[in-house]
């Protein structure tokens, strides 16, 4: 349970300079209501109840299949804003990633480009790769290329936080043994407690599978 905690300038600015730069000078955030020709796919992840919500508006060049524009809005903490900002740069720089390439973008890549994040910030605030894949699927859906839609092989356990059974598995493998520990890593069920029984069952399952 949190107290009201605060930041002392000298000691606990635990973000890197790159994070700070993107936090204070975010790139590509959408500061207006977009016109129809400014994007051809949208993606969304999270909810304000779980602490972070991210929406993206993506413009893909039909011929090259490269991302030409990637705008976003984020409700979230410093690292959520910074990681979205830098991800938007990563997918559009040097002529833009192809959708194939973009789908492979991992939270680890985003974090590495930021010069690292505090451990407890990683799982919860780097959401942009999920919103990106949501937008990629949306692009294929809008262009009737249904065969290219890849629904993540794993099952979504918490549709609000977009946490999958794979995320739970990773958290357990990462050493999280209790519901609290898994929540600290994944945010599963925060603001959406109805999913918790299923989560606890999964934790038991993976613990037995790997550590039983």
């Amino acid at each position, binding site marked *: *349970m*949190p*107290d*009201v*905690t*605060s*930041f*002392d*300038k000298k000691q606990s*600015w635990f973000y890197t300079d790159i994070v700070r730069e993107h*936090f*204070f000078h*975010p790139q590509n*955030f959408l*500061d207006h209501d977009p016109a129809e020709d400014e994007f051809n796919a949208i993606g*969304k992840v999270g909810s*304000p*109840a*779980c*602490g*972070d*919500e*991210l*929406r993206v508006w993506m413009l893909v060049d039909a011929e090259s299949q490269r991302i030409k524009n990637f705008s976003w*809005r*984020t*409700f*979230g*903490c*410093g690292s*959520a*804003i910074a990681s979205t900002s830098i991800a938007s740069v990563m997918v559009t720089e040097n002529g833009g990633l192809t959708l194939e390439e973009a789908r492979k973008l991992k939270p680890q890549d985003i974090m590495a480009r930021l010069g690292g994040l505090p451990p*407890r*910030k990683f799982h*919860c*605030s780097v959401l942009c790769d999920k919103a990106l894949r949501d937008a990629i699927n949306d692009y294929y859906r809008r262009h009737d290329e249904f065969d290219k839609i890849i629904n993540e092989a794993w099952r979504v356990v918490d549709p609000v936080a977009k946490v999958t059974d794979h995320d739970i598995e990773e958290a357990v493998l990462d050493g999280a043994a209790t519901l*609290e520990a898994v*929540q*600290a890593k994944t*945010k599963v069920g*925060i*603001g959406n407690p109805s999913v918790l029984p299923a989560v606890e069952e999964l934790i038991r399952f993976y613990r037995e599978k790997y550590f039983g």
Partner: protein
Amino acid sequence: MRTVYLDHAAATPLDPRAFEAMRPFLTQTYGNPSSFHSAGKEAKDALDAARSSLATILGARADEILFTSGGTESDNLAILGVCRALGKGHIVTSAIEHQAVMEAVGHLEKKEGFEVTYVPVDKHGLVDPEAVVKAIRPDTILVSIMYANNEIGTIEPIAEIGNAIQKMRQAAGSKSPLFHTDACQAAGALDLTVEKLHVDLLTLNGSKIYGPKGVGLLYVRRGIKLQPLLFGGSQEKGIRPGTENVVGIVGLATALTLAQAEAKTETARLIPLRDKLISGILKSIPKTRLNGHPTERLPNNVNISIMDIEGEAMILYLDARGVYASTGSACTSASLDPSHVILALGMPYEVAHGSVRFTLGRSTSEADIDYVLEVLPPLVEKLRSMSPVSVDEKYFL
């Protein structure tokens, strides 16, 4: 850059007068109060004097004051000490206690077989004394309700609750339940006379009253048995063994004496500043909400939820402009859960995530308040322009 420290509920600077009182005990008067020689006696005399002056402030006897390492230890000693001495029973507490109380009570509930009732609060964070009385059962051994809340500043009706508990005990001819209050946040502004408050145990610490960190006390009414948390020598009647932190205790006694002597004038100075900041924010920024009670509130506490943006982001932007505040947002907590206090007011998660706390102090001037009112609205506007969220008014008004 101008810096405006508005986090006095987290920590206060040491009062220079307390520092002067402490100074000799760092380098010159370093004896162990338990030693049987003059250097020891000198330290013992200072310890006794500090204990007496603190007892006087509380209207208590010197032997009813136990020194600890701070508020958290005092709360733990009160709760674990009373309950473990009795072995089993029922505890009543509120939904908005500090973690030091909440986690200690939670431990007894989960691991040691005690039963707990959490009394809810109203939308302003007030505990209803009637609800406390109703929650008390024949096997209730302890009631713990904070004097003033650390996040939202709401002042609880401790004297009324204490009085009701005392009457119940008299009517039943019982010594139970005992009544504990955490007065850490209240100590700089409110009356600490234990007889008036009708409390049996009371927690205080140094770090919120311009005293040193790492020192606190627990008032324990004579005759109450506590099981110690630590085992060792016979210091503090064996209830809290370990060589006394003489320099810290001297600092605590000096700081609390000064804070209590100046409480009235400081309160009269702070309330207009507090109210100027509250009304200034509510007027200049749309979709904002005051958390806590409008009047039954600590003179230095301002807690406001700003919708559609997240507290940590706001704290970082404020920090960049030299304003030091804090938030109930999950992002600054290890648990990733937002403030249990704001949630207990019946507010949704979104409101807790967007809460910002400013706590004023002795150094706060009207120019500081003006500065915050100048820098805050554009920061909010910038963060809102990045946010995809729009919380409907029906959820926070």
